[in-house]
């Protein structure tokens, strides 16, 4: 396959992944590495490098809109970024020690987790009170408000140490596997810290760029980022997620989500199998 053909098919595959990822809210970054390794026979290290670059692009692109709409909480994001970037640096350092088959199995498990991550329950209608100024959330100024139909709704973070620890894990997975690990980040903010769903998803997205940049520097110096591969992947994923975001308001996503979830499960099982049998 010459470079024109290879770039075209990789671009098309990444476009579809980005499109489905943003339309279903499951994230496209998580399927890029399995797509490249299983469908195109790319070495998992090049795949991780390219995926990481595309994750920075989509996260920063989407974050630019969310931040301006006032959903993301910049302070909560910044505090938790200490945990995610430290985790990402540790993950990138570990990536050179862990055998590639181990990376494949771990990625397979993360894919299965992303597909079956606990479904979110509706936000309680009663708004939480302003934080006690002497509590940890109060001292760290981890409160805010977000726009909703009935006006601005205030909220404050809870269980901050637990959330911080989970974020370290999310960062480490991101650094090891070149993914955004949005599912773990949302778990930490939505379930552990009790933040409103819209705030946790958008703040998680906002943080993914910084987390990925921390490990991308290490991967760059190690020669994992091959421009001939990063180019079609990044352009494809960002074009796809822009298309997905444009359609998001009008599309019925329930069936698509089921379909995409099935794809993620299949890729996850395939990654585990390939890792287990030593093919990756």
């Amino acid at each position, binding site marked *: 396959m*010459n*470079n*024109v053909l*290879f*770039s075209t098919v990789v671009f098309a595959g990444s476009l579809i992944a980005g499109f489905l990822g943003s339309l279903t809210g499951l994230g496209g970054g998580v399927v890029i590495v399995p797509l490249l390794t299983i469908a*195109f*026979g*790319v*070495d998992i*290290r*090049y795949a991780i490098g390219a995926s990481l*670059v595309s994750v*920075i*692009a989509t*996260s*920063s*692109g989407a*974050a*630019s*809109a*969310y*931040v*301006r709409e*006032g959903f*993301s909480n*910049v*302070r909560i994001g*910044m505090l938790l*970024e*200490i945990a995610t*970037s*430290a985790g*990402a*640096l540790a993950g*990138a350092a570990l990536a050179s020690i862990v055998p590639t088959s181990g990376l494949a199995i771990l990625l397979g498990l993360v894919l299965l987790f992303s597909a079956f991550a606990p479904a979110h329950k509706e936000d309680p209608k009663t708004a939480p009170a302003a934080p006690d100024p002497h509590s940890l959330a109060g001292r*760290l*100024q981890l409160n805010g408000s977000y726009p909703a139909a009935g006006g601005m709704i205030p909220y404050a973070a809870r269980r901050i140490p637990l959330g911080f620890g989970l974020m370290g894990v999310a960062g480490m997975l991101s650094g090891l596997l070149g993914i955004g690990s949005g599912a773990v980040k949302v778990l930490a903010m939505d379930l552990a810290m009790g933040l409103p769903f819209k705030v946790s998803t958008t703040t998680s997205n906002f943080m993914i*760029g*910084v987390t*990925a*940049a*921390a*490990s991308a*520097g*290490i991967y*760059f*110096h*190690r*020669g*994992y*980022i*091959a*421009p*001939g*591969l*990063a*180019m079609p992947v*990044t*352009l494809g994923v*960002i074009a796809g997620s822009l298309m997905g975001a444009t359609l998001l308001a009008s599309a019925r996503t329930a069936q698509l989500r089921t379909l995409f979830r099935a794809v993620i499960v299949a890729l996850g099982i395939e990654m585990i199998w390939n890792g287990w049998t030593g093919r990756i």
Partner: protein
Amino acid sequence: MYTDEELDRQMGLLLRVCVIVSCAVILAGGVLYLIRHGRESEQFGMFHGVPGYLETVPGVFREARADGARAIIQLGVLFLIATPVLRVVFAVWGFARQRRRLYVGISLTVLALLAWGIFGQR
């Protein structure tokens, strides 16, 4: 008073501009790469790293100025990696204007971690 809303809006604009510039550079490098190397077939099935000049910041800049297609793509990639870093630098400045000293410190810590990942290698 410099409000959270203003900080959010300006940060959003910064991110958007950086992503557009990075992707434009990657696209330009990509077109050049396909014109010059389109008929070759680069192999990604076996890992052997990338040529040394694509692994260092000065190397990428030098080759990109010499019109190397892969280096121009890599330059776009470096801009993209720099985007979240710039966002954190901007946050330091924004929190300083809000007189939130705690958050200036937190942002500087994140910045130090990022710098260690990007410059702390060898």
